[in-house]
């Protein structure tokens, strides 16, 4: 076990094992204070009291979506990560025969700075690229580029689905987004009948892995078998996604290792890099350049807005002069909007943040009552920026702690009065 930015992690790098049998998060029973906070944050009920004492455990990986919301909300720091690749990545970075490729997600650059004392949400994209270079990554490729590619694929798929309605063998509407791995496992586990509604597009990282080992290898004249791809995410569920057996379309493992924002901060600190004095640098070309549409993938409603920036232009044949489509921006809960597209009509969309909200929209689709064309789902409140792999703010933990204690006090008093 290692302490990584306030969270414990088992530093193993599982290879060739079935990710369905791994606990990506688990409770340390010696630290659990039986407060039950984790249970309130878990949409599936995978984490629950296992004995009279109220000690909690994730009871089975099959019911856990690996989102880590229990972990970031535990006031006692009792939940650890079960899988961490940091040690293996350090070894690969030292090995002259391995070409190590970085693939950071959009939201990482809005959380990483917090580990180095910067204000909440500070954008540190340029410093992040510089830090990855100093760590010794051979190619500074960026998952934001793949987010742009995702929009091309997923937007095109949506337009195809809309156009093919009424034909036989038409794929159903609404189309659900497919970039959030917690949501994907949730749909596969609890709504398997809705799988035809899921976009067949891989997530951005699911696309960047195989692109790196085919297109990237070709463009840089690098033998693909030497490439080791590192996915850097605000998310724990991405570790599960990277290990899915089907993610091997490049002819190799598409994603060799996955770490989260906290683990990247840990690696930068361990390497002795002075993050705050780094100059701002860009990514490497080919698979590095990105747009505003890609960076907003980190927010709830962002994938929707980015897709609409494409769909609007394709469906109307006109230029979208103001790319801000603010109606779909979502802070919490469910947000719905009618987007008017000239020469086409109205595109009806919904955005849900949190799996409990996702379930409501899924039940509607199941009942045949969903009026939407396109639904975006993110497992974490507000989107990836609040993912289970983002830095845990000490003030938030303190306030969670205070609120938990207050709750327990209230229950305690109520019980005493009644007793």
């Amino acid at each position, binding site marked *: 076990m290692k302490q990584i930015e306030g969270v414990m992690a088992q530093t193993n790098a599982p290879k060739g094992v079935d990710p369905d049998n791994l606990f990506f998060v688990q409770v340390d029973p010696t630290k659990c204070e039986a407060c039950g906070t984790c249970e309130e944050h878990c949409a599936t009920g995978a984490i629950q009291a296992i004995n009279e004492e109220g000690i909690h455990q994730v009871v089975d990986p099959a019911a856990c979506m690996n989102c880590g919301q229990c972990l970031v909300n535990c006031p006692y720091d009792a939940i650890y990560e079960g899988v961490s690749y940091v040690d293996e990545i350090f070894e690969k970075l030292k090995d002259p025969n391995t070409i190590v490729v970085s693939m950071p997600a959009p939201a990482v650059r*809005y959380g990483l700075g917090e580990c180095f004392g910067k*204000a909440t949400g500070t954008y540190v994209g340029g410093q992040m690229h510089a830090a990855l270079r100093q760590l010794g990554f051979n190619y500074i490729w960026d998952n934001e580029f793949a987010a742009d590619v995702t929009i091309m694929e997923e937007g095109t798929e949506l337009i195809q689905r809309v156009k093919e309605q009424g034909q036989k063998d038409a794929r159903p509407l609404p189309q659900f987004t497919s970039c959030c791995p917690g949501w994907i496992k949730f749909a596969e586990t609890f709504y*398997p009948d809705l799988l035809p509604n899921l976009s067949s597009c891989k997530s951005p990282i699911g696309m960047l892995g195989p692109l790196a080992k085919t297109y990237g290898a070709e463009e840089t004249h690098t033998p693909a078998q030497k490439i080791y791809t590192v996915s850097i995410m605000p998310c724990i569920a991405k570790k599960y996604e990277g290990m899915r057996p089907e993610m091997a379309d490049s002819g190799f493992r598409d994603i060799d290792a996955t770490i989260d924002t906290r683990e990247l901060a840990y690696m930068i600190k361990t390497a002795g890099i002075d993050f705050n004095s780094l100059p701002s640098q860009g990514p490497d070309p080919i698979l*590095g350049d990105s747009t505003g549409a890609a960076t907003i993938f980190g927010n709830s409603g962002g994938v929707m807005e980015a897709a609409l920036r494409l769909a609007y232009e394709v469906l109307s044949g006109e230029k979208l002069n103001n790319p801000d489509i603010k109606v779909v921006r979502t802070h919490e809960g469910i947000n719905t909007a009618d987007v008017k597209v000239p020469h086409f009509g109205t595109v009806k969309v919904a955005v849900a943040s949190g799996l409990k909200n996702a379930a409501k929209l899924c039940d509607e689709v199941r009942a045949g009552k969903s009026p939407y064309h396109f639904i975006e789902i993110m497992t974490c409140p*507000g*989107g990836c920026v609040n993912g289970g792999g983002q830095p845990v703010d000490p003030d938030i933990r303190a306030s969670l702690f205070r609120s938990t204690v207050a709750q327990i006090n209230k229950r305690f008093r109520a019980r005493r009065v009644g007793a």
Partner: protein
Amino acid sequence: MKLNRRGFIKVCGMMAGYAVLGANLTREAVAATMDFVGLRQKSVYDADAHIYKVRKSQDNPMVKKLYDHKEGFLHDGPCGHMSHHLLHTHYVDRSARVKVLKEKGYKFNL
């Protein structure tokens, strides 16, 4: 959730120090977390509007190069043949294991 013995023992110890705190703190904690998300979200939209020069995926020069009709690696376009091979996937019905757990008496929310 029901408060049990072990919880009680710990709570009694903590109560002395925290009895002064009010009960509105749950709301405060939720609000604090959402503020925190709000700050990160705001920063994302600020970067989209002010830092990124190109705002739409279809205008990214590297994306255009990738999908170039003649020379592009994905020259048959989005959702084309190569895209389907590398960039699309299929899903697996994973409901069976949870069903078995429920039959064994485990309770889940769904």
